[in-house]
């Protein structure tokens, strides 16, 4: 590759990288997650972040930062707690990649200055480069194995990142191996440094490099005479030894070179050294340019997240600062899925077939809603459906147990993010069931159900056991004594309230007795029931009043969900 082309590509990819980084980082100040984030303009958020950083740096909290930097950022302490294999894999990638970057990619800036006499073809650099490369590859393999073993799905952006990383490393190893074995590379160097054009003069050097350095000359057959080798060794000592030690130290590339030996002539003829170099460099440049847009961006965002967490809790931040931390979380998340494994409602997610309950999905749907990438109300032609509804179900079944926040290896305040996400869902017309159902009166819901296409089908919504509220004969025992109503704290505390209950418990039972269940589903009584079980405990006829209230809620979510998006019946 010509120096001019190299420089052009380097600067172009560097420029793309910097612009991309600025664009991605600007989202931390633009993206609005949560109702309290709407008030703050991007500029106010920049100021809030500056203020927060300043306040942290000039307080005692700054003492926590060095520890967090070493233990949490460099040594990945939080990851260690959630699995040794995953931690080892990640640490190998982090260490191997950083060291390769410093020693190899930035050699003119780092290695050449720190170590006089640095040459990539000398020991220990030959060995170290292979070691670092193997560290990264083993690390990637461990992470992939871990994901596979835990049954975590692969994600497209993660796959792009892994593919690019793999391409850089594999092309690097192949390039090095090919250059070790390549006679063409040997002749080019010999011409430059020995200056001998005739093959007669190069014969001893050739013999020496074939036997000691693994160059695969296809015209060199049979045993090599010892005196020829000795002359070659001397010539090597004069012309080559300053920059070359035996490549066997490259413990990956050298065996590969030996394996490639039979094909070396073919590869040389095909100009493999040139296109392998192009492949390697282009993969590196592509990686650099795409850094802000692949999973590698977490390498920027995750350390920031960890340091913010070390500086103090979200609750101590200003609303504008919190808004920025939430937007940052979307980028710092590596989709590792540790949160999903420990999620306390994961069995519910499996049973309901809705991955929207799981933290890693919720993070994405929260970001999508805030970024306007999701159809806001989730309205479809025939009722509501789609991603937004599943996201809402997931958001409101979350128990806020805090396990995901506790286990997150990049210290995201997911509790805060979930609360903000629920606020956004409610503002987008997707609040908790109690809210959207109570938004219409019970009789209006009954009219919707009456007008809906499936209104008069007799089948019950899918469920494994008999419904308490299904059989109106069950309620013949109800003598309408009103004990349930008299002991109900909701009835008592609603007296004189502007938003009182519509039906008393006893009236709900009466409607069920009359077979008018649809009239109860949207009732405020059903949705404001405190489930204190006073009614059930006190019912002289042993009716399971509170159990029935809860059953009606589950029925309402299913039945009213089908007519939720319909226009008002005429």
């Amino acid at each position: 590759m010509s120096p001019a082309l190299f420089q052009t590509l380097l600067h172009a990819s560097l420029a793309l990288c910097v612009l991309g980084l600025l664009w991605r980082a600007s989202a931390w100040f633009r993206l609005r997650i949560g109702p309290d984030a709407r008030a703050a303009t991007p500029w106010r958020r920049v100021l809030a972040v500056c203020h927060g950083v300043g306040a942290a740096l000039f307080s005692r909290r700054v003492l926590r930062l060095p520890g967090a930097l070493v233990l949490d950022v460099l040594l990945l302490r939080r990851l260690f707690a959630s699995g040794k294999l995953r931690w080892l894999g990640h640490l190998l990638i982090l260490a191997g990649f950083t060291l390769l970057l410093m020693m190899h990619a930035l050699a003119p800036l780092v290695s050449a200055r720190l170590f006089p006499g640095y040459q990539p073809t000398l020991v220990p650099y030959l060995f170290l480069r292979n070691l670092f490369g193997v560290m990264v590859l083993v690390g990637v393999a461990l992470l992939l194995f871990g994901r596979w073993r835990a049954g975590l799905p692969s994600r497209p952006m993660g796959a792009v990142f892994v593919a690019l990383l793999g391409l850089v490393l594999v092309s690097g190893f192949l390039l090095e191996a090919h250059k070790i074995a390549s006679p063409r590379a040997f002749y080019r160097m010999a011409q430059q440094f020995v200056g001998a054009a005739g093959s007669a003069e190069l014969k001893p050097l050739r013999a020496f490099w074939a036997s000691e350095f693994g160059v695969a000359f296809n015209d060199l057959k049979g045993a090599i005479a010892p005196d020829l080798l000795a002359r070659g060794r001397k010539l090597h000592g004069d012309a080559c030894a300053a920059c070359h030690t035996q490549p066997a130290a490259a413990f990956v590339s050298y065996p590969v070179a030996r394996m490639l030996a039979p094909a070396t002539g073919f590869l040389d003829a095909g100009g493999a050294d040139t296109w392998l170099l192009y492949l390697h460099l282009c993969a590196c440049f592509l990686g650099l340019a795409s850094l802000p847009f692949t999973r590698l961006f977490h390498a920027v965002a995750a350390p920031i997240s960890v340091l913010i967490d070390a500086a103090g809790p979200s609750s101590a931040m200003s609303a504008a600062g919190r808004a920025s931390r939430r937007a940052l979380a979307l980028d710092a998340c590596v989709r590792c899925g540790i949160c999903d494994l420990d999620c306390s409602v994961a069995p519910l997610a499996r049973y309901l077939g809705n991955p929207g309950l799981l933290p890693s999905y919720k993070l994405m749907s929260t970001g999508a809603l805030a970024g306007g990438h999701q159809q806001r109300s989730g309205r479809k032609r025939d009722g509501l459906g789609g991603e937004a509804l599943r996201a809402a179900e997931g958001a409101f079944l979350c128990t806020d147990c805090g396990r995901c926040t506790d286990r997150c290896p990049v210290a995201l305040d997911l509790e805060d993010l979930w609360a903000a996400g629920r606020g956004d869902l409610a503002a987008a017309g997707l609040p908790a069931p109690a809210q959207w159902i109570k938004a219409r009166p019970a009789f209006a819901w009954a009219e919707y159900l009456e007008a809906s296409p499936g209104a008069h089908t007799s089948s019950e919504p899918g469920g494994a056991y008999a419904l308490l509220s299904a059989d109106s004969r069950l309620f013949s025992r109800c003598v309408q004594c009103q004990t349930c109503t008299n002991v109900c704290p909701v009835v008592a505390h609603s007296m004189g309230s502007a938003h009182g209950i519509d039906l008393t418990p006893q009236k709900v039972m009466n409607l069920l007795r009359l077979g008018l269940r649809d009239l109860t589903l949207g009732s405020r009584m059903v949705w404001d029931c405190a489930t204190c079980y006073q009614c059930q405990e006190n019912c002289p006829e042993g009716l399971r009043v509170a159990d029935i209230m809860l059953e009606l809620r589950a029925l309402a979510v299913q039945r009213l969900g089908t007519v939720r998006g319909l226009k008002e019946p005429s």
Partner: protein
Amino acid sequence: MTYALFLGCKIPYRLPAYEASTRAVLGHLGVTLVDLAFNCCGYPARNVSRDAFVVAAARNLALAERAGLDLLTPCACCFGTLRHAIRFLGEDAELRAHVTRTLAAEGLVWSEKIEVEHLLAVLARKVGIDTVATAVRAPRAGLRVAAQYGCHALRPSDVTGMDNPMTPTLFETLIRATGATPVDWPRRLDCCGDPLHEANTGLSERMTRAKIADAVESGAEVLCTACPHCHLRFDAAQTGGRDPAIHTLLYTQLLGLALGLPEKTLGL
């Protein structure tokens, strides 16, 4: 005496003092607690899907059964939910078969071999009131305490089996064992308001305030709880700059103090 400790979703993150004091007190009284990888008890899912709630609860029961341990929970709502699931599974063979199939996919089995107990019942009946009282080193003499039972621990009594639902005495007996004086208060069996806080915040807060006012009027100095939902609701109702009308104390903290355990281990 060994139990699988079912902390539920509220305690570890929102009320760690309850976990700390439960472990400290039970450890002191010779009860061994084992931690299993439990999931949500199923309580929030009851509003959405009957089957999902029973499946979630049954999975926890099966996990405890696999470990061969009875289950102890300090949360009244988890307790009630798990006991309800057992009732539903017992009265409907079709549901039972469905849940059995779902659990089998994970290699789990529930065959009614284990018990679900609330912390208070274990202290009063398994450890024994006498043992608890004998272990008290620093009696809280003269402290007037209002017992907050928690609806889901008490009712429906045919599911919870906790105590007489109209005139329960279990909590008061446990308070007396610490040397403190239980207070009789008219609203002691009322709902704390927590379950409908999201659905109807105003109504929920009226219920919470009514309870607090009643406890204060009845001369209680401390409102003693045995459920994270009740406890957090009372605390939330009393924040806002003013001094709290009444101090809330978890029963495990009250007992821990009476046992002479260091305040730090009780999350105080």
